[in-house]
């Protein structure tokens, strides 16, 4: 174990691809912690999962047309969000039903388009992540997305807080809560595109939800929750990368499992959770 860690560190000094992988992992950890916190506080976990799955046809189309994947993914992510809202509003179906219909259809379409467009190896990487194959171009895209996410959260912190906490109040003073909702979804699709490389499409929801939920167990203040969620995201990404490199595991499952272990530990020891107090109370 110890030798493999020193191996990992010396490999980090040696190989460019590993440095890129580490940088991408750290950046994705930060941005998914920030956006994921708002996703879980707004009860949008399922929506986060849906949007991340819905970008698949966008990636396929962008690949076919030879344009930036981010553009294709964003178009389809926003399209899915709009469609979900439209179906829920224009029928008596519940929102989660509408989400289920739209995202599975998008995902199915994406799956077929990807198989038409390229080799099956590509599909596997899109679905489960291949952080060790991050290109300089990908890294640059991720830097830009991280900047957008951080700016969005810093500038619109007050608006994100109030629309997440008390949307009725926000409306009563004249804030356009619908615009805020769609702005958050657009940023969410951007995060999805970055996280594709590290955890893959299927497991993105875990990066959004698990570090944020872990942070929620430790604090009663939103700003601290955002910070902690980012830190947990970075820790999970870094340790997951180590496992992925050392044992040749797919990076997505490795990162997600580490995040889940951090959650489990927090669930047991976090004072706010009061696991031990409850246990003692029962005895």
């Amino acid at each position, binding site marked *: 174990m110890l030798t493999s860690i020193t191996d990992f560190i010396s490999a980090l000094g040696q190989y460019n691809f590993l440095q890129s992988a580490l940088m991408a992992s750290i950046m994705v950890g930060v941005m998914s912690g920030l956006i994921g916190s708002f996703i879980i*506080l707004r009860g949008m976990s399922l929506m986060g999962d849906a949007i991340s799955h819905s970008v698949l046809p966008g990636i396929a189309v962008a690949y076919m047309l030879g344009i930036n994947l981010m553009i294709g993914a964003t178009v389809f992510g926003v399209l899915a969000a709009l469609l979900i809202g439209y179906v829920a509003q224009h029928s008596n179906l519940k929102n989660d039903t509408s989400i289920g219909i739209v995202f599975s259809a998008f995902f199915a379409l994406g799956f077929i388009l990807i198989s038409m467009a390229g080799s099956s190896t590509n599909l596997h990487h899109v679905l489960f992540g291949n952080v060790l194959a991050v290109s300089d171009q990908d890294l640059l895209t991720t830097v830009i997305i991280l900047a957008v996410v951080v700016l969005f959260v810093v*500038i*619109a*912190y*007050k*608006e994100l*807080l*109030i629309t*997440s*906490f*008390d949307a*009725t*109040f*926000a*409306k*009563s*003073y*004249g*804030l356009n809560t619908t615009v805020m909702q769609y702005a958050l979804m657009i940023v969410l699709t951007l995060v999805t595109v970055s996280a594709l490389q590290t955890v893959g499409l299927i497991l993105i929801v875990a990066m959004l939800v698990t570090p944020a939920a872990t942070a*929620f167990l430790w*604090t*009663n*203040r*939103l700003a*601290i*929750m955002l910070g902690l969620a980012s830190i947990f995201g970075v820790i999970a990404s870094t340790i997951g990368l180590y496992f992925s490199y050392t044992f040749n595991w797919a990076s997505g499952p490795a990162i997600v499992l580490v995040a889940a272990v951090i959650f489990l530990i927090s669930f047991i020891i976090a004072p706010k959770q009061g696991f031990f107090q409850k246990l003692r109370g029962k005895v």
Partner: protein
Amino acid sequence: MLRADGLTVGYTATPVFEDLSVQFEPGKITGIIGPNGAGKSTLIKAILGMIKKQAGTVTLDGQAVNKVRQKTAYVEQRAHIDMSFPINVFDVVLTGTYGRLGLFKSPGAKEKQQAMDALSDLKLTEFKKRQIGELSGGQLQRVFVARAVVQQAEVVILDEPFVGIDMKSEADIMAILKQWRDQGKTIIVIHHDLNKVSEYFDDLVIMNHGIVAAGPVDEVYTRDNIAHAFSPDLGNVLFDGKERA
């Protein structure tokens, strides 16, 4: 003066009320009473522009209310709030400054001082760092009234503020409402407890899918009006004792 003229509002094809007109005087506490489903909450949401009107206008001193949102404050029923949200009492009260600050500006030292003052007005200073889920019903309601204080609005509308809270909190909130009235603000309270109507309100609006009666409490709060809006029995129960005495 806050006026609604010719309001028609409905969630579905059949309107909750049609062609409703009512006005609220500044420097008065106006109660709105009526049976469940009479359209009380719908009326204030329509006045605040939070739901769509099929017809009608709402004006504050001649200006459309939608254009002067900063002059209104709304304390909603508590049920809709996520009590586990990571926010403490001070930060909730501070959100009262958000409307005035405008988009993307953060509250500064001045706004924080205003929040501290409002906390002290509602006797909440010792709870300022509590997460909101750790408060009693009365403490929580006082937090939302403190937020309305911070909003510095001319019109304050409260939806059933006294439901499920202790008498001490009710008295503290009532003291703030009276203070606001004496400053010349327009205070509107949706109310459920008919016993305290004369004690709490200057003016009264009785609703049942439209206005049954509106005006000074002494003139409006009568056996006939209550019988008409609620039921003849309730009118008898409330007014019999008084008339004999």
